[in-house]
């Protein structure tokens, strides 16, 4: 049975959600504003979306962001999954608790520190900064998120399934690919989505590690906003919000869905 809302509950929920989402809603609304002035409503229009298509600088930045996102999310998913498997499967090796803790740490590490330390690393090894440094930086922090998501699925995965595959003559790699992976796939997909979304909206770490010709969308937006908010920026942000929402929703649904649900397939 659902508990009835009391007046107090209702007020707190409305206030809480308003505080969270009102700014975003405003941003979305003003992206359809016909007026050039950001705070004055001048009627409905999609002209800022059209003019966006002619803004080379923003389109370039979007393209960089997308590439960084796709490449870093994919590599982070592979590495993060491997890390999770090692932590869950390797049994009790020396310092396992330490490693498990260490994989969590980047999740709470201030981004400024992550960004700065990566910058120092790239400078130290004399790595030309640009697309690949941003991508590597994104891999390094989103990998941890993937590892945590996949790890939580792996601990509930029945080990004897993998043993059965080995017993039937599958090499360890085949056993993993043909038996373990299909069963933990939703978690892996959710990890990828998460990594992609994180990469998409990262500003701090990207600013530290970027170089010429690799300006990401959040960086572009930030630098433009300092010159004054234009409705064009609102339009870009609206698209970003839509993308991130889609990513998070897909990740959530994928985690909840059972791996290749047999019922779903049979019916």
């Amino acid at each position, binding site marked *: 049975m659902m508990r009835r809302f009391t007046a107090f509950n209702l007020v707190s929920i409305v206030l809480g959600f308003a505080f969270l989402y009102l700014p975003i809603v405003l941003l979305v609304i003003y992206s359809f504003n016909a007026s050039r002035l950001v705070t004055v409503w001048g009627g409905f229009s999609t002209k800022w979306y059209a003019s966006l298509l002619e803004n080379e600088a923003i389109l370039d930045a979007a393209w960089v962001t997308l590439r960084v996102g796709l490449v870093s999310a994919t590599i982070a998913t592979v590495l993060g999954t491997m890390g999770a498997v090692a932590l869950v499967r390797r049994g009790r090796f020396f310092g396992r608790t330490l490693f498990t803790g260490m994989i969590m740490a980047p999740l709470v590490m201030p981004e400024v520190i992550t960004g700065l330390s990566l910058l120092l690393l790239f400078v130290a090894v004399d790595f030309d900064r640009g697309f690949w440094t941003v991508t590597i930086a994104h891999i390094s922090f989103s990998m941890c998120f993937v590892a945590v998501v996949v790890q939580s699925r792996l601990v509930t995965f*029945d080990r*004897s*399934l993998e*043993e*059965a*595959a*080995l*017993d*039937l*003559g*599958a*090499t*360890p790699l*085949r*056993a993993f690919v*043909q*038996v373990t992976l*299909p*069963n933990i796939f939703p978690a892996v997909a959710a990890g990828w989505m998460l990594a992609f979304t994180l990469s998409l909206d990262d500003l701090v770490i990207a600013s530290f590690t970027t170089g010429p010709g690799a300006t990401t969308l959040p960086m572009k937006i930030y630098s433009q906003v300092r010159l004054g908010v234009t409705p064009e920026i609102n339009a870009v942000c609206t698209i970003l919000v839509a993308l991130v929402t889609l990513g998070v929703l897909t990740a959530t649904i994928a985690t909840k869905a059972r*791996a*290749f649900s*047999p*019922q779903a*397939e*049979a019916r």
Partner: protein
Amino acid sequence: MKAALGAVRRSFQPWADPAAKPFITFRGVTKRFGQFVAVDNQTLEIFEREFHALLGPSGCGKTTLLRMLAGFETPSEGDILLEDKPLAGVPPHRRPVNMMFQSYALFPHMSVEANVAFGLKQDKLPKSEIGDRVADVLKLVKMEAFARRKPDQLSGGQRQRVALARAIAKRPKVLLLDEPLGALDKKLREETQFELINLQETLGLTFVIVTHDQEEAMTMADRISVMDHGRIVQVASPAEIYERPKSRYVADFIGSVNIFEAEVDNVTPERIHLATTDGFDVACDADIAAAKGQTVWFAVRPEKVRISHAAPADAGINAVAGEVWDIAYFGDMTLFNVRLDSGRIVRASAMNAARIVEQPITWEDRVWLSWSADAGVVLLD
């Protein structure tokens, strides 16, 4: 049914032949988990086409022994040999051994057919042959109608059949079964036991089965290894385990038994004479080396104890009097609990051969219990 199989099997006794080569050998195998010793320096030989049961209470190391044979655990010490070749260093996927898991471990994302075909695909057999062999084994376990179902659309018994089909599809040299019938109800269990025996006969495989159900081990196995705390305490045929247990532990673990502590009184070439602490004397066929004055135990099973109102002819020996304490009527037989004067309860069972008995034995009757010289065994441990 069992009688027929018994006739086939009567001549199968490779362990009695000193020239016979064992198929699987555990040689001085120890397995430690940290400080804990799960298997303690054990040696065991299993022969080709043998149906061998590992029997013991929970936690005694049965699964560990099986997993070492399958390659999922590495012995801390000792060797495991298959056809005289050491298995050390051979990973699980290269061992000609297949296992049927306690939890079945069917792949949930594959159909029954794909589950059974999995092992054959790893061997890269041609497609048509895989198809034929999958169809064959599914027919063997009577699951051909369910080939396209997913494991979670099957009942427990059906899943167990699929797991069995998957394990035998590769025609392994050795089939390992870890409590294969644990999840089945009694009736299905008995049916499947018979099917397993049949299957083993037809395929000519070597079976090693783990169970903690003594009846299951007795019905199915050629030989049983009784285990206790990481040690194999006796390896013998079911009949020998039952009739000639080597220790109180084995005697008590298999079936029901009366055990009396006793002191050796006299040893002659034919007989050992004992004086029990319950105040009666025993003369037992001597098949064990015991010295005068030694403390031993005398074990006799309830069905070998006669119960009567009248004192037996030679009441001074292999007989004791008591009072009927409790009676359990089972239809085909009746179990009497008789309280000796020493206070000990002794079990005796009698077949109900006649419908009407003139003077039935009833509660609080004074009765005599007696047995013949070959009815019981003397245990040193």
